């Protein structure tokens, strides 16, 4: 599967990172309470995910692989992402105040977002080249955003609904996630993707 278009669709819908792969659940349940915060988080994830894919691609292929240091991959990637988030935050704060005001508060949360790290690992494991890595990161980020916004809209409604007290909060959110995930199962087999 080397076609960038298919990689994109696979990452975006068929193998949706949240609903099909179960990665990035903590921010998913944590910030999907209103559509506004969900949008901010989603955009921040797309941005950082793509940057992280580029940088880790360079680190892996230009440093770790040639020097035979692949066993440092996990440590190197997580530290890279942590510093990247710090730099992005400082840079936005200085140069793009508007963007910083919109995304700033979500950035620190991203360091522990396993979706970012997962994408950098999957890029290596799937042996994607630079273009495909970028496409995969973009598709995954967009898939994350789509689901988190959809879900936030659902939860805004759930808050108004009369719900059994034991089910309030997380349990009903999980039930909703289960139904949305069931809908996404419908994409399975699309274009032979899995």
């Amino acid at each position: 599967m080397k076609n960038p278009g298919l990689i994109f669709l696979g990452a975006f819908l068929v193998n949706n990172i949240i609903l099909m792969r179960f990665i990035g659940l903590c921010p998913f349940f944590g910030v999907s309470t209103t559509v506004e915060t969900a949008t901010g988080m989603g955009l921040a994830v797309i941005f950082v995910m793509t940057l992280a894919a580029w940088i880790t691609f360079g680190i892996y292929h230009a440093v770790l692989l040639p020097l035979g240091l692949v066993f440092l991959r996990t440590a190197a990637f997580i530290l890279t992402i942590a510093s990247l988030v710090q730099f992005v935050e400082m840079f936005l704060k200085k140069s793009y105040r508007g963007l910083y005001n919109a995304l700033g508060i979500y950035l620190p949360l991203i360091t522990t977002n396993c979706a970012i790290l997962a994408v950098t690992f999957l890029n290596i494991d799937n042996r994607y080249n630079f273009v495909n890595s970028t496409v995969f990161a973009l598709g995954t980020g967009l898939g994350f955003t789509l689901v988190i916004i959809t879900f936030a809209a659902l939860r805004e409604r759930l808050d108004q609904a009369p719900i059994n007290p034991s089910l309030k909060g997380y349990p009903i959110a999980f039930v909703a996630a289960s139904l949305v995930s069931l809908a996404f199962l419908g994409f399975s087999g699309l274009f032979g993707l899995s």
Partner: protein
Amino acid sequence: MTSTKKMIITLVVVAVVCATVLALFYSFTVPLIAKTRVDLALAGLKEVAEADSFLEIISDTLWNAIGPDENVVGIVFRVWPQGYGGLIPITVGLDNDRKITGIRIAGASEGLKETPGLGVKITEADFRGQFIGKSADEVRLKKDGGLIDAITAATISSKAVCDGVRNGIEKYAQYGGPEFDKRNIFPDADDFIAIIKDSLWYALKAGDTLGIVFLASGEGYLDRIVVAVGLDRNKKIVGVDILMSQETAGIGELIREKDFLAKIRDGKPETISGATVSSEAVITAVKEAAKSYGEYLK
């Protein structure tokens, strides 16, 4: 000691200790990991063919099954047909009468992506057992005139397995080693001696070694591509030909063009626009095999 200094020293010490521990552990496990992979692969082959050993002809794709007295008792090949959810990895054993001795379908833990509970049933013995003793023509679903019962509610997966196995047999059945005229690859030589069965030959002229002929293979856009290459004593390529390729007609199959091959031969390989993956696969395969077989020229 200032606090900045202390911070840097702590960080460096921790990093160095961690890296050292990992380096030691890595060098300890790497051979084990390699051995585990080989053992698993071998166990997979033994499941489909009764043989003492297997001789790899195409890396990870085709093997000769070697029985007692070093006789070739059949072949084992792997195919990856498109199923419902993704590619289905199948290993097939074939005896010398071109009858199936067994098939093995990788389970969900090995990357099978068929629907759990439905398509995944192709891995069960009830379904796989039907293939044993069948020949290529019989490997079709009953509704298509064959002898295989499809799994209820998993027709696409069942059909994919039949098609993959049948096409694989048609593709590899003639394999006693790929039939090709080595003289096309190495025109100056008049005799060839096999060094590694079905993969490497010395090219001789009047008893003198002129060079080597070998097979190289690489992952193309759709399937594996096998190339034959001739190399003279100065490690210069004297001939290249595509032996096996199932690339997209009109695009990937452009790698069979004389022009493309001539450029590889002259040491100035050029990728074909529109068929980058296929042509790069050929170029890399030739380059890497030339490097690894090059030492036979010494």
